[in-house]
């Protein structure tokens, strides 16, 4: 039998599509209250524009498995930090060419010689770096 947690934990982040919301640490809890599924999530950044899309994706994924009565609750405390990204999340980011938090090594060639080009990148949670080994640019998840 598929549990609501199985379904919700496989929802991918709409911006970093290589990691699930569970791996990213933004999925806090999935509980069943009678027929209702209550999903608790937390935003990475206060203004993270992906939150609406994540709520929608959670509802859709659950509806596909027959869970129609769903409440998605946002909880701010404890505040999200990059420590909440799981080891599997770190691996998935690295495989996708994104340096996980705490690492500034090039995810393409593993060179440690890299430069920060911009403190902000395509999402609020990433910075932009460039590798001095292979010359490729890459995104890096900022440590928060």
């Amino acid at each position, binding site marked *: 039998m598929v549990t609501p947690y199985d379904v919700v934990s496989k929802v991918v982040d709409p911006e970093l599509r290589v990691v699930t919301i569970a791996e990213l640490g933004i999925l806090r809890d999935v509980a069943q209250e009678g027929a209702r599924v209550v999903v608790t999530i937390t*935003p990475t950044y*206060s203004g993270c*524009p992906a939150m609406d899309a994540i709520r929608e994706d959670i509802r859709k994924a659950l509806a596909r498995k027959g869970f129609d009565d769903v409440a998605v609750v946002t909880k701010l405390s404890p505040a999200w930090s990059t420590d909440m990204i799981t080891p599997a999340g770190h691996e998935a980011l690295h495989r996708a060419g994104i340096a996980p938090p705490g690492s500034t090594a090039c995810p393409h060639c593993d060179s440690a010689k890299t430069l920060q080009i911009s403190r902000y990148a395509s999402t609020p949670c990433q910075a932009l770096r460039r590798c001095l080994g292979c010359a490729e640019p890459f995104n890096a998840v900022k440590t928060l």
Partner: protein
Amino acid sequence: MTDPMSEGSSRVNQQARVPQRSGGTPLELADDALIAAQRLSEWVARAPTLEEDVALTNIALDQLGVARLLLQSLGDEDELAYRRGDAEFRNCLLVELPFGRARGDLDFGWTVVWLLFLAAAQKLRYEAWDNEVAAKAVKESAYHLDHATQWVIRLGDGTSLSRERVQAAVEELWPYTHELTEGIRDDWLSIVEPVLKEATLVKPSHDTWRPSGGRSGRHTEHLSYVLAEMQALHRAHPGVQW
């Protein structure tokens, strides 16, 4: 004319006007963040480099995120953001000023000085506030502060032109920092002064003109222009959704 104070209080809950240990009320902090977000959004697609465009846009987004979370805790966020008149806003005057001497100006040096002053104050107020929104916002403010610090140093201790422009901004904006930092002045100075020093910038020697009034709803004309743009769509189409 109705009293703007009583008019404003009818839209927000009890909690909105309770002074915090950090010296500000939740409504003041929410309005500072909201108006700062709207101001910063003027930089979208207009910053000097693509990276900086992305940076300022992200900082605007952080400010908007905090403003929304705070307003949601104080009442109906749309009602509060889009239906209040200028006299009902409690933001400090600094956040409503244009990024330059005149309306429509968009000076990058001016903006980073503005952000340095603002982020230092926001960080201190969020740190001192036992609130889950603030606990999250403090990390973001620290990043904004760091970003502004690096730019102020780079431009202040840069070319004669860049120095001239950030020095002008320090002088023009300094009077407004008194209202911004009410109750946290010493802590704020201990953050900002070392940055100015490293950037070879000097504080204005005259420090007696201290404009205020934002916290009681008496704003500059600039806020009205900010609100006109921010609220036009919602006022024309009440309740409109994307």
